[in-house]
């Protein structure tokens, strides 16, 4: 037998650990190689869609209101739609992608037959989507700059903020996918959960104008914290309140990650 197998055998005689780098890398490499065959369509939808929102609201509302919550409207909506772009690039990719790979293509069966555990599979998939979302999330900022948003050093923090948010939403998408019996049921979640969250996040209008209960509710919306952090990164942080925003995003990501692993394992392992 080949030396490779011998070597593998001696190094793996012990029980393998959790969240191993080679297992995560294997799943990531699969995604990256696949991405080379479909990156055009995903890049198109993930960047054009939020840009359309940005332009529609920017020109539509922008002609009525010039300043909102102390910002020029293009600044307000240009930073706000970053969160929209991250949401679209992460939650839907995870919902549909994991469902198709689990139920239709049976990709996950092949991966779990290799030395990869469900925990590693879910983690690597969420990492990959989060990386993509962190890049796609910058598109609205770049478009807004064309329309008068001033670049700022703090904007360099936008990709990491997007990554943390994208990881949480990717995990949430995987969780939703694992809980749903049929891909048709996704529309219930989209209508009742995702659409309201996307609208009431301070993206297009400030939540300070909403009734008090809605302002309280917004604090339970992870997207709101992403919007606030991106805006503050661009125009100046506000101290402890931003630490709270970040902590909530991290907490959301961790909670969704563990829940996604639990739900996916229930689906994949009998």
């Amino acid at each position, binding site marked *: *037998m*080949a030396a*490779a*197998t011998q*070597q*593998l*055998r001696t190094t*793996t*005689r*012990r*029980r*393998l650990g959790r969240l191993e780098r*080679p297992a995560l*890398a*294997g*799943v990531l*490499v*699969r995604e990256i*190689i*696949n991405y080379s*065959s*479909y990156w055009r369509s995903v890049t198109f939808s993930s960047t054009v869609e939020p840009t359309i929102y940005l332009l529609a609201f920017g020109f539509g509302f922008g002609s009525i209101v010039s300043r909102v919550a102390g910002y020029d409207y293009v600044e307000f909506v240009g930073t706000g739609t970053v969160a929209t772009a991250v949401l679209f690039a992460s939650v839907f990719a995870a919902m549909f992608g994991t469902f198709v790979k689990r139920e239709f*293509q*049976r*990709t996950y*069966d*092949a*991966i*779990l*037959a*290799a*030395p*990869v*555990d469900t925990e590693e599979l879910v983690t690597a998939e969420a990492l990959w989507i989060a990386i993509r979302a962190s890049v796609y999330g910058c598109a609205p900022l770049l478009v807004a700059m064309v329309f008068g948003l001033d670049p700022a050093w703090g904007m360099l923090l936008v990709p990491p903020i997007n990554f943390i948010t994208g990881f949480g939403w990717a995990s949430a998408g995987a969780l939703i996918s694992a809980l749903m019996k049929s891909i048709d049921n996704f529309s219930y979640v989209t209508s009742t959960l995702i659409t309201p969250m996307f609208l009431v996040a301070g993206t297009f209008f400030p939540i300070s104008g909403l009734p008090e209960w809605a302002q309280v509710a917004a604090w339970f919306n992870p997207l709101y914290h992403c919007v606030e952090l991106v805006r503050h990164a661009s125009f100046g942080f506000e101290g402890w309140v931003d630490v709270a925003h970040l902590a909530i995003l991290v907490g959301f990501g961790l909670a969704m990650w563990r829940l996604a692993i639990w739900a996916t394992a229930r689906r*994949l*392992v*009998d």
Partner: protein
Amino acid sequence: MGAQSAISLRGVVKRFGPITAVNGLDLDVPEGTCVGLLGPNGAGKSTTMKLLTAQAIADEGTIDVLGYDLPRDSKVARAEMGVVPQLDNLDTTLTVEQNLRVFTYLYRVPRAQRREAIERALAMANLPDRRDTRVDKLSGGMRRRLLIARALVHQPRLVLLDEPTVGLDPQVRQELWALIDQLRNEGTSILMSTHYIEEAERLADTVTIMSHGEAVATGRPSQLIEQHAGREAVEVYGPPAKLREVEAAARAGGMSTRRTGTSIAVLRLEEATNGGPPDGERRPANLEDVFVLLTGEEIS
């Protein structure tokens, strides 16, 4: 036990709610041999396969794969074995070579050996000319060969084949048999589930016949035939009334029978006592006779 076992199951039970899919299964795959797992649909073959990769967790019993205790050490065991699934789950928008490359990463082939591993798998699947072809442009036979080659990139000691030739035409099936035979000749241990009797007869050193989640017989094909179906059989054709008569007479005369759908096969002619065997087409007893005798004539 003399030879070491690549796979050893003892008293394995797997339940799905009220259904017991695997019911006290004992199974051995001696190292370097090919074992055929035969059984009708619903006998528990696929569940057994899933138990071996810890994609299903047993409720009772012990499972040992390549010396590792499952499910605890399943990941190490999986690193040393290859799995060919029943359902084609290749990445169809990727090329042949890209599919193999992905699996060199998943199976942790060291960087310096990845290229060699891919070339070896391409040669084994007889697909070197198709390396840059997208999978959705391949014929059914080529896809199957690739599916098998994909499981071999890391030169596993043990290969699980779940219904490797289901739904394929005879030419393609023969190609795959040659591929599996080559693997066996190289000393790889193989567990192959199938409901094609000819496949088990040609490839398997020993066969385990499963029915209702249990192993009802284990042995070399020739041994099983001798033991359960005797040496010689005769097929009698005719209207149903005549067939019932033949059936009754044969049983009274110390022979056993089974229905084939179009005829009655009377078995154990060599043991005929009164009046001798009925007229019909004589043939040697085969594994299909054993299969039907042991797993029942009715489809449940």
